[in-house]
């Protein structure tokens, strides 16, 4: 049998070699790799749908951990969003990055390999390995290629993320030693997590939750995110907001499904996320830079998804997984459009933008679509997410759903208001005509998936199953 998951993991390295040899074509090679990864994912999903979860295991540290890759109902959606968002970011790179293309694309491909490895790993140690390496890669993407204030933003990002990684490492080592049969395997943790002594469970839970709150990012520990998102490269912002923030959600899913203590503290966790959702919306209201506004929008949306995980019922968790996909597609679309706006109009300050929809209709209408999808337009993925999250939340926490619901309404209000001010009204009637086929293709790809999955959510919800 072909080790398809290992090929998925190693394919970017072939791209890196090729891009190193023929650096003129680095963009095309990266896009090709992105496309091949989608094809491989579809093949893996086909195997998964026809014969259930499967895994591949290789030799790593004998007696401690195997190099195990899995596909199951938890990670399949995350793999899907990773391949799509990476493909879109590769497509847009050609338009945005003009210098040192080959090294930028090589870094991105390496990042794709680590992100896929993180979601594929069936073993906590391997998960940590990829988690930590991806931090370094994104640090370099930010630091070497980012915007004007990149130095500050990238160092802040690295310090926060490495701290989160260290907490994760302590948690993982504690899990290893306090499981009855010392093991790093996620499946073993899920089936035997309840055997860890209760006070140690609490310690592990707190350590890991802090680590995930940083990574998601959620309210008290989010301050790296607006800087990092707004100073990153377009591709970097798409990946950080769309994919890397899902690390925390994925970790939370594993944590909630394995340690019983999580259930008894789920109300507290849900409150943190609900406050985070509302906080993100309120802070986004006062932003003058559209990039920072989107960053806070992302924090608010991630708060809603985190809230959905902590409901801990089938509908809520399906909502969280589905919402992760929806958020990844929508926020990466929005970030790409905002960076296009900055590139075309030379600014991303809201008060300097006007009448975008006349000047550049493609950006204007796509942005409108992105906003509508965010606030839950029916037939887009946003609608399904909001529906599942609110139903699930109501089942578990009752009236606490008023906070995320308020955040959703507030998001709708300021997004539409912003759109009206900066996109619809104004005197500037000059028409820009930037044509970049690849960027257009990336926009089309994301819009297409938002609609397809919004119309037929059963494609994904079937994969997730009943958990």
């Amino acid at each position, binding site marked *: 049998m072909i080790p398809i998951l290992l090929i998925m993991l190693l394919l970017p390295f072939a791209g890196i070699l090729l891009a190193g040899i023929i650096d003129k074509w680095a963009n095309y090679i990266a896009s090709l790799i992105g496309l091949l990864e989608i094809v491989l994912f579809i093949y893996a999903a086909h195997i998964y749908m026809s014969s259930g979860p499967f895994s591949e295991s290789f*030799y*790593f540290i*004998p007696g401690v951990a195997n190099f195990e890759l899995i596909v199951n109902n938890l990670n399949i959606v995350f793999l899907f969003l990773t391949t799509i968002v990476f493909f879109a970011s590769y497509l847009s790179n050609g338009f945005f990055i003009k210098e040192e293309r080959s090294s930028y694309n090589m870094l991105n491909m390496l990042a794709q390999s680590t992100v896929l490895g993180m979601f594929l790993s069936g073993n906590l*140690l391997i998960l940590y*390995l990829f988690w930590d390496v991806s931090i*370094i890669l994104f640090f370099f993407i930010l*630091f070497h290629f980012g915007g004007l204030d990149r*130095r500050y933003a990238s160092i802040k990002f690295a310090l926060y993320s490495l701290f989160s990684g260290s907490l994760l490492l302590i948690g993982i080592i504690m899990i290893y030693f306090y499981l009855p049969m010392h093991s790093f395997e996620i499946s073993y943790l899920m089936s035997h997590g309840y055997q860890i002594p209760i006070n140690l469970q609490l310690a592990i839970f707190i350590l890991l939750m802090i680590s995930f709150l940083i990574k998601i990012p959620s309210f008290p520990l989010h301050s790296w995110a607006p800087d990092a998102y707004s100073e990153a490269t377009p591709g970097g912002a798409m990946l950080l907001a769309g994919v890397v923030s899902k690390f925390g959600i994925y970790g939370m899913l594993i944590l909630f499904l394995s340690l019983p203590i999580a259930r008894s503290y789920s109300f507290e966790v849900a409150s943190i996320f609900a406050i985070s959702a509302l906080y993100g919306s309120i802070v986004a209201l006062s932003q003058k830079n559209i990039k920072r506004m989107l960053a806070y929008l992302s924090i608010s949306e991630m708060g809603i998804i985190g809230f959905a995980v902590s409901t801990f019922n089938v509908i809520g968790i399906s909502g969280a997984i589905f919402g992760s996909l929806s958020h990844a597609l929508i926020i990466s679309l929005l970030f790409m459009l905002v960076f296009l706006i900055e590139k075309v109009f030379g600014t991303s300050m809201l008060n300097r933008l006007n009448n975008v929809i006349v000047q550049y209709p493609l950006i204007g209408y796509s942005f409108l679509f992105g906003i509508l999808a965010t606030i839950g337009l029916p037939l887009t993925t946003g609608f399904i997410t909001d529906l599942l999250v609110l139903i699930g939340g109501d089942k578990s926490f009752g009236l606490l759903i008023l906070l995320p619901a308020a955040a959703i309404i507030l998001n709708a209000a300021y997004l539409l208001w912003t759109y009206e001010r900066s996109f619809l009204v104004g005197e500037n009637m000059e028409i820009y005509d930037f044509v970049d086929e690849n960027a257009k293709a990336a926009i089309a790809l994301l819009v297409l998936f938002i609609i397809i999955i919004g119309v037929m959510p059963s494609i994904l919800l079937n994969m997730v199953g009943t958990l």
Partner: protein
Amino acid sequence: MISLFYALILAIAAMFVLNSVARILGNKKIELAISLIFTSLISAVIALMLSEGYSGIHAQFIKLNEFSLLLSLAVSLGMILIHLISFREREYADFSILSMFSFIGMLLVIMSNSIVTIFIGLALLTVPTVFSLFLNSKWVEAGVKYFIVTALSAGLFAFGAAMLFASSGSLQIAEQSYDIGNFVAFLLLFASIAIESGIFPFNLWVPDVYQKSPAFITSMLGGLNKKIGLIALIFVSLIIFPYASKGMLAIFSILTMFYGNIAALVQKNVKRMLAYSSISQVGYILIGLSTLSNYGIASSIYQIFSHMFAFIGLFAIVMLMEAQGRHEISDYVGLNKENKIAAFTVAIMLLSMIGMPFTAGFIGKFMLFSSAVASNMAWLAIIGIINTVISVYYYAKLIIAVYTNKAEARPIIISPSLATAAVISLVIVLILGIYPSLLFGLAQGAASAI
């Protein structure tokens, strides 16, 4: 049929004689060739002995088993790199012979079966290093400082060994036993070794000497001499005084880690910063030793390997920069534009010292911290991880400098010998990180052999 042990002795002797002849002829290239050929031969013989599971005691004072063979292998590989690094220097002709003495000293310490062998080995290791610091008048300050501390260390060791002999009537390591009467002997031996390997508070000489020495001698001091001190510590504290040393090593480990990391935060000179970083690395290694478990010792051995190659490989590049008069962290700005391999080597070696996954440093630190948790000392692991987070700041400072762009950057060319050393250590660090089972089983076997 000649046994492998005699082959080893013969190789060492032949290396020494031939190298002396080459020195008299005055040909640096022949000297390098002889050193490389014979060091590789010695490594090959040791690897062969290791694969055959050779073990035995020779003449009461040399003991070969998995532990000593594995570490001898590491030291010989490190020595090959040192020869490659130092080849371009004017002083190489003399340094080559002096380092050979040091090499024999290292092997003696590693293979020692009696206290006296450790003592002779340490002296044979340090005295030639002092002499090589006297080869150039610019290094004399470092030489004098190193001479004073090593003399003090030797004195303490001799005194401690004498007290041990007085209490047990024997010099064999295996025949010593702990009683309250020879606790003072333990303290003396510990202080002596702590000076050698830079354990807080006996490490005040380390930054000065490392900074003022030339890069190739610093790489030997930090990459090899320090590790030999730690191996002597394994013999003294883990075999002779296990009960006395458990809590003590943990405390010294914490102090050493914090001292090294916090002092390194404010350094501007690269070599001085790396000196403090190597102090903190000793602290991490002590975590594994303080658990007194097989797994802990195995993890210490792994970390000794990983730091040895990371340190020596990094100093290949420090050597390159030093030749251009670039000493400060700010001088490293733009290295990526000037030479991609050098920049990549610096980045990977520093990431390995931080403990980034897929480098040898991660597996080492992971094993160290998990050995602490396994011995119910989770607090020690947590302190170790806090230190790792602190250390990110100063390692990242250098990585950032290397990858910051500079306005005018002219390509630098690395000499082939330096490039070889850098690439070899790069490959070792990455392989030990990606495929740890290569060394993991050997380290565990070595730990259970002592």
